[in-house]
């Protein structure tokens, strides 16, 4: 699954650690999601989208 997390985070001048705190996960998790190594659960994906004031489709995109 592709995502725009890194771009959205950079636009808001947030570090991975700050975003991790906001999402209630570890920095490792944010890093893994950004690199496309780990697909977040639906609740976490919704939380991320809500945090940026976007819909889930604006942040995450199915590669299939």
């Amino acid at each position: 699954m592709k995502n725009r997390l890194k771009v959205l985070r950079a636009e808001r001048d947030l570090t991975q650690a700050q975003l991790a705190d906001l999402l209630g996960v570890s920095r490792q998790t944010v890093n893994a999601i950004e690199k496309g190594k780990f697909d977040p659960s639906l609740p976490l994906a919704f939380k991320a989208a809500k945090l940026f004031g976007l819909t889930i489709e604006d942040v995450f995109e199915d590669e299939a």
Partner: protein
Amino acid sequence: MKTPQSTTTDWKERNANYTKKLAKWTAAWVVTLAIATFGPVFIWQQEAITITAIVINFLVGIGMILANKHHLLSLDELQQKIQLNAMGLSLGVGLISGISYSTLSTTGVINSHAEISHLVIVMSLTYMVGIILGNRKYQ
């Protein structure tokens, strides 16, 4: 661009608390196991005390399992995935190698008895390798 407001998560604090609790329960289990194992040899000779020590160790073990459950639930979803993968690997390797080891012993291929401690060592090492590999995979 608007910066999101902090949700003031206590996730890290909660995780640290459960990790400390797990460490305490694990230490207590090891200590009660040592008492139950070496007590009858060096301290007392009554069977009733030995049974009591084993029961206490068993009950502390249940506490340790519950602490481990709480610790797992306090992890985030990626950390849980790494932990569960490592546990699954450890269970699989432990089961397969344990059965093979036991069969080698019962069929007389190897002279020594299959010791449960050897299985514990294999499972512990496999679990640690699983954790290391999982963390490297998601770096």
